[in-house]
């Protein structure tokens, strides 16, 4: 299982160094690194020309793609993404979600995404689990479960006069 965090984390060094760390931890042989790295970059839709760029010079969206590619280097059976687009602007966010959506088609990879965006979940998920205040309140076919919900107020639960954060609970959509 591989994990992608809400906020991308870069290891010191270049993009290539970042992928090499994952390869080392996954026990990838030296000879296989180049092929695996270019495959991961392709899946994460990350430009190979940026391979030798220092990680901290990338935009947040690019960093998140490197994090995705790094997770894919470990050849996971399940990919868990914790609000992968919440640090991104809407356009970058849509593009990344499309990449993630394509992943399970191309790679037949079980992907679990935690998100507050119902529309996002509805667009990509096969199966959805709605969590409200720490409890599973609904689960099943994504279209049925998410059909009646809208973005994102419907997930915030009953209004609480003391709660000024306005943060809805997350729902999970898996594909």
């Amino acid at each position: 299982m591989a994990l992608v965090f809400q906020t991308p984390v870069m290891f010191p060094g270049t993009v290539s160094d970042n992928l090499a760390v994952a390869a080392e931890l996954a026990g990838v042989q030296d000879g296989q690194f180049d092929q695996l790295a270019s495959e991961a970059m392709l899946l994460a839709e990350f430009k190979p020309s940026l391979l030798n760029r220092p990680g901290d010079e990338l935009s947040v969206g690019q960093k998140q793609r490197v994090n995705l590619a790094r997770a894919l280097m470990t050849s996971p059976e399940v990919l868990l993404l914790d609000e992968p687009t919440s640090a991104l602007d809407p356009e970058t966010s849509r593009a990344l979600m499309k990449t993630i959506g394509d992943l399970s088609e191309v790679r037949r990879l079980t992907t679990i995404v935690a998100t507050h965006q119902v529309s996002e979940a509805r667009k990509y998920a096969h199966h959805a689990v709605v969590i409200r205040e720490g409890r599973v309140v609904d689960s099943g076919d994504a279209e049925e479960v998410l059909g009646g919900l809208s973005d994102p107020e419907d997930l915030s639960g009953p209004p609480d006069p003391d709660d000024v954060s306005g943060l809805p609970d997350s729902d999970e959509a898996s594909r």
Partner: protein
Amino acid sequence: MQALDVLEQPILDLTWIDLTVAMGLVLISIGVSRWHRTGLARSFAVGALRTVLQLTLVGYLLVYIFAIDRWYLVVAALLLMLAVASKAAVDRQDSKTPELFGITGVALLLGSGLTLIYVSVMVVHVDPWYNPRYLIPLFGMILGNAMNAAALAADRLAGEMETRRPEVEAYLALGANSVRAAREPVRRALRASMIPTVNTLMVVGIVSLPGMMTGQIIAGSNPLLAVRYQIVVMFMLGSAVALAAVIVVLGYRRTFFTAAEQLRPKDG
């Protein structure tokens, strides 16, 4: 040898009246502190008083230990020094847990103890093995440096584990164990704790004349012998610092992770 005749002269005695005159120097530091309102005048006065009291007490204690000349008294004195140094090193940390005190104690015991045994047995050939005239000053120097290194190492490791928390988590998420995940914080903590010693090795004798060497020279030793002792001291400080720092860092690293190799929450 005309030049070495100076060594035959007796040491000039320092009387209590002379020390009172030396107190004038403290007045200068207090004066500067008051002049610019640094808020340190009182501390200078208290510090000066503590210096007089602590050193006088140590002087009498050393006279007593030298006179009784028993191995167990020497060992007790060394262990007392060790306990005080461990406490002082932990007191400088933000997290003063009993666990960290234990780790620091073990680090100082092994780092300083092994270095002292090496130097006293294999280099200086101290005879009898517990001769307090050698062991206590040597251990004092070793311990002082090891204590600083241990404190620096623990402080830096805690800081690095805090600022690099996301990075450490990311390593763990990729399947790394705690040793691999904390490699960079460990490296940085060790560097920070050993750099002062490396710098001292670089400039000793050029920028500064070390206290032990100057002391021996004033006490009438041949400067060449004093220099040889100082070389031994510099080498032993390097070893004590490296050992104490690495033991503290490796022991302390463990406390940031659970048995299942998870990063502990910040407050736990």
